[in-house]
């Protein structure tokens, strides 16, 4: 785009050396961008390169990094006792948490798109939980679902159901976080709702005239026209899932009841029974709990490779993320 504009400009203008006003403009552009360019260099490019370098070293922050070749990666793939558990847990969130949350958001958005009266009130009710600070919503959920006096199990008991141990049971801790994910699906819901309301009404009418029933209209009119937004929600959901950290770490720490001030998350990690140990928490603990920064960098490089593959997919699919898109 830029190049065509340039060549057109060249063809019509007299071939002179860059005029003073153009040089001035370039300088101004550079001034506008200077802080950001510096920021990208310091907080993005350099750390990426440094992470790769650290991943080949033994480094504890006190003495300088010491080159050990591929030893970190060897340990990662053959000996690390928890990296597999952590990877599988993270994968669980990618495969279950993302689709359930997105699907639920889609259903609610569909209902709201059809409710004409008081739509603002409905929207606010379903959106507001997404605003609650994640730490607050996790602490609230651990309380609501606590097996002793938690309201959820008491309400279940009214119906004669004996509730599970939720955040204190390795089999139920991840599903409990999925319930939390459903409660905070509001921002995805708003994006999907906007997309649903953008579907031209005439298309539904045309489908009706062709004799399409309700489900057929969803299949042949709604889904095709919102599929880019749905895919956007899914991919950003996957990116959120591979770095799933706060909810799991706080749930472990609060549900265990053993958190100690200033201890971070090290001693309640993955509670109960490593069921909430995600990859990024494992990275955090190896890096900042035991200060094995070299080894944690190897974990970070692996995470980067996975994230980069997902990003490539995303960048190729979305016009909004290309320089020309989203106009």
């Amino acid at each position: 785009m830029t190049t065509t504009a340039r060549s057109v400009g060249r063809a019509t203008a007299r071939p002179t050396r860059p005029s003073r006003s153009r040089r001035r403009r370039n300088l101004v552009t550079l001034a506008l961008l200077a802080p950001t360019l510096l920021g990208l260099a310091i907080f993005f490019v350099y750390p990426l390169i440094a992470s790769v370098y650290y991943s080949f070293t033994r480094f504890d922050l006190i003495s300088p990094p010491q080159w050990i070749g591929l030893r970190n990666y060897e340990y990662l793939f053959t000996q690390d006792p928890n990296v597999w558990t952590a990877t599988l847990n993270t994968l669980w969130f990618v495969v279950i948490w993302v689709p359930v949350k997105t699907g639920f958001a889609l259903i609610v958005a569909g209902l709201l798109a059809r409710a004409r009266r008081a739509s603002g009130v409905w929207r606010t009710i379903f959106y507001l939980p997404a605003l609650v600070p994640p730490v607050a919503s996790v602490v609230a959920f651990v309380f609501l679902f606590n097996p002793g006096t938690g309201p959820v199990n008491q309400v279940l008991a009214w119906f004669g159901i004996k509730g599970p141990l939720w955040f204190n049971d390795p089999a139920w801790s991840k599903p409990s976080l999925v319930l939390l994910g459903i409660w905070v699906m509001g921002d995805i819901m708003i994006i999907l709702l906007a997309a649903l309301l953008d579907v031209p009404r005439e298309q539904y009418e045309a489908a009706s005239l062709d004799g399409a029933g309700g489900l057929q209209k969803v299949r042949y009119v709604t889904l095709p026209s919102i599929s880019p937004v749905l895919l956007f929600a899914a991919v950003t959901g996957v990116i959120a899932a591979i770095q799933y950290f706060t909810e799991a770490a706080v749930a472990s720490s609060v549900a265990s009841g053993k958190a100690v001030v200033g201890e971070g998350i090290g001693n309640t990690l993955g509670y109960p029974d490593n069921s909430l140990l995600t990859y990024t928490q494992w990275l955090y603990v190896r890096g900042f709990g035991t200060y094995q920064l070299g080894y944690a960098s190897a974990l970070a490089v692996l995470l980067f490779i996975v994230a980069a593959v997902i990003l490539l997919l995303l960048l190729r699919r979305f016009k909004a993320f290309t320089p020309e898109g989203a106009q």
Partner: protein
Amino acid sequence: MTSATLTPEAPASPAPRPRRIRTPRSLRTRRVLGWIAEHAVLIVLAALFVSPVVFVFLTSVMSSSQTLTASLWPQPFVWSNYLTVFTTVPLAQWFANSAMYAILATAFMLISSVPAAYALAKIRFRGSGVLFTAIIVAMLLPPQVTAIPIYVMWSQLGLTGTLWPLILPNLLGDAFSIFLLRQFFLTIPTEYSDAARIDGNGEFGVLWRVVLPMAKPGIAATAIFMFFNSWNDYYGPLLYTSENPAAWPVAYGLASFRGVHGTDWGLTMAMTILVTVPVVIIFFFAQRVFVEGITLTGVKG
């Protein structure tokens, strides 16, 4: 959904949408039933969505001994829980830390990111495509990937144990904010900025006199996002301040609150509500720009 236009007369009729065709009674009944079913589902879901807030609030005004019983209704209402939390932990200090973090981060982000977003949206220059791609990647990459070298830098500067490592980088541009601001700036027709240039304005003049006034809602939305993200941040404070409770923001303090006080759910829920209230108040004041902002993050693929 079945609709009136499904009646046999509809396709033959010359008018685009025949209004007054009598719908067969069975169809009308089905529509009414469908309406009732949809609203019943909505009402049940809405009740389920609101109920956590109700239970959390009720518990927040229970005495600590009552929270250990099965009763769900406070008896008596212990409103003083909301004052007690301020004396059991340095809550005022934590709120001040959160406010400092969120306000400074937002202000710094605006200073650095508005000009960058303007350049990306309104000026043609070589390399803008590469730069924009880099910003997108920086925005979407998990922060854990780059966390270690950045932590090493801040520890060499002696700033770990404070919130500055989370505040200062915003002076050098925030990727997500630049992305969002650029999306807003693109919605301003180029004719306005071109006209301002012809009138003799430099780029700073165009930005200040034309783009900024027109993009106020977008800038407000971006600022609110930044404010909320900093207010809610857990990972950053865990990384940099976990060993120094005096520097904790309130969201991080809440996460370690229960550990100190055993099972005092009453106080914990009071604090949970206190952490959330500022966010909700800001949301209600700025609802319109905010919802517009969320929609723009997922725009039109």
